[in-house]
């Protein structure tokens, strides 16, 4: 039943002499929703950057869907089926909301350069298809009313949503969410949780998410990995993690000994 989608083996990266992440082992089965938590500077985003090709790991292997993807260019990783959002929102600010999503839809479109330059029928067909698909993603996220607005003019919470919509438009099988609820109020966070659950079912997604909001992580994740100082210190179900002494230590500090 469970089919491994992503397998991370002994992953590590060094910047100069600094071992930012080392000996990280993870495996994600198809359809799972997994959390990745840890204190600030634990190496969570660095791990994401290795998974998406932004950094080339100095050791270890990443196998996605049966093929090794460690060190591949980011765009190839995305075409292969992993897409992501960014911790500090990185929308295309001067593009409209709709165009932001269209950009991500780019990899799924077929019409080539010459057909666009000479305005051949394939260009119009391809662009119409992109428009339809992009609009349908916007609808799911309730962003279709803003479609002609510039991305920079959206309210903060909507920008976060647009990031997810954009990541989804790239047609991923594995979605990496880097602090999707950062800066949101409790109501927005609740809506977001529902939305994540919905898209996961709707698009048959596997999701790995970094989050500081423990309520959200404990609420929706099936398993959780905990990073501290670049090393994996625990993994397990939310209840196991909550009671794990190492995790408590990492978050709250060591118990004072006599």
């Amino acid at each position: 039943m469970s089919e491994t989608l992503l397998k991370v083996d002994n992953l590590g990266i060094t910047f100069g002499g600094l071992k930012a992440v080392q000996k990280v082992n993870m495996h994600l089965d198809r359809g799972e929703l997994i959390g990745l938590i840890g204190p600030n500077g634990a190496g969570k985003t660095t791990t994401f950057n290795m998974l998406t090709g932004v950094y080339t790991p100095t050791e270890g292997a990443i196998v996605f869907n049966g093929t090794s993807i460690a060190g591949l260019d980011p765009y190839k990783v995305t075409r292969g089926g992993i897409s992501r959002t960014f911790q500090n929102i990185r929308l295309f600010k001067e593009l409209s909301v709709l165009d932001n999503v269209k950009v991500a839809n780019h990899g799924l479109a077929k019409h080539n350069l010459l057909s666009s330059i000479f305005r051949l029928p394939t260009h119009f067909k391809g662009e119409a298809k992109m428009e339809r698909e992009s609009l349908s993603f916007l609808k799911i996220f309730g962003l279709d009313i803003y479609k002609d607005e510039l991305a920079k003019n959206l309210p903060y919470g909507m920008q976060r949503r647009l990031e997810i919509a954009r990541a989804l438009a790239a047609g991923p099988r594995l979605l990496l969410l880097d602090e999707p609820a950062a800066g949101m109020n409790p109501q927005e966070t609740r809506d977001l949780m529902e939305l994540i659950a919905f898209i996961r079912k709707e698009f048959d997604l596997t999701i790995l998410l970094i989050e500081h909001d423990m309520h959200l992580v404990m609420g929706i994740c099936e398993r959780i990995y905990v990073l501290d100082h670049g090393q994996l210190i625990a993994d397990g179900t939310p209840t196991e993690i909550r009671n794990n002494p190492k995790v408590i230590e990492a978050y709250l500090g060591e118990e004072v000994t006599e």
Partner: protein
Amino acid sequence: MKKSKVFWGYIVLALVIYAVVQLLINSGTVNFYYENMLITICINIMLAVSLHLVIGITGQFSIGHAGFMAIGAYLSAIGTMKLEMPFITAILLGAVVAALAGLLVGIPSLRLKGDYLAIATLGFAEIIRIVFLNIDYVGGAAGLQIMRQSSWGYAFFAVVITILVIANFTKSRHGRACIAIREDEIAADAMGINTTYYKVVAFVIGSFFAGVAGAVYAHNFYIIQPTTFGFLKSFDILILVVLGGLGSLSGSVLAAIFLTVVTTYLQGFPETRMIIYSLVLIIVMLYRPTGLLGTKEITDVFKFGKKGGSKL
């Protein structure tokens, strides 16, 4: 099929402009002096629009555009003067070789960003100029004599094709990919866009049309010399793009027309010419810091009641 109607509308408009001006030229209302100014405007529009694709759309700060113009000029001149090709074929030859040069220069240098890319492209343009300077076959420093073959017709249709191709490119998924690179290269990469490929494509298309502009230019003045294509020429083109508004095609066109007219009229005041020219630039940039049109297009003016979404 509303979009294709708009397209044919522009084609008809272009034909009307062509016919009217051609009639005026034939009837002698527009004399040689003004025809020459019109051709210069066309050349500058081509240069501005092709650089707009590289800087305004793709966000790659290249200041070596005159180098590709030089290649277009020299290769087309070789075509007509030495190989006795028809003018059209010579233009194509110049453009294709300029595009190839763009590919050769673009692949290594587009790995660089910002100031570094600017310096690298400037260097490449100087290399191109110095190569021509030292080839005796094309006359070296003395320059190459050319028969005048450019006319309003050639120049105008070259402009129309340039604008059509670049506008079509911009308003497609490919152009959107380029704008995404300009906005945020890391995010564009993460969204599945082959950033290197699109940067090079934009650079090559830009070089191609700089080559066309060079070819038309070469056959409009009876001689071409390497000094014409120095880095000052590159800056002139850059000024057109910035003055028009980075990211605005119609802005580049307007700026090219505006500055060409200003320069032409200032030729009557050789002593104060550059002072006035600089003042015009300063005043425009003070009152329109984002350029004449900002990132907007002139067509946006006609879209009433539509907020934001200026492009695409």
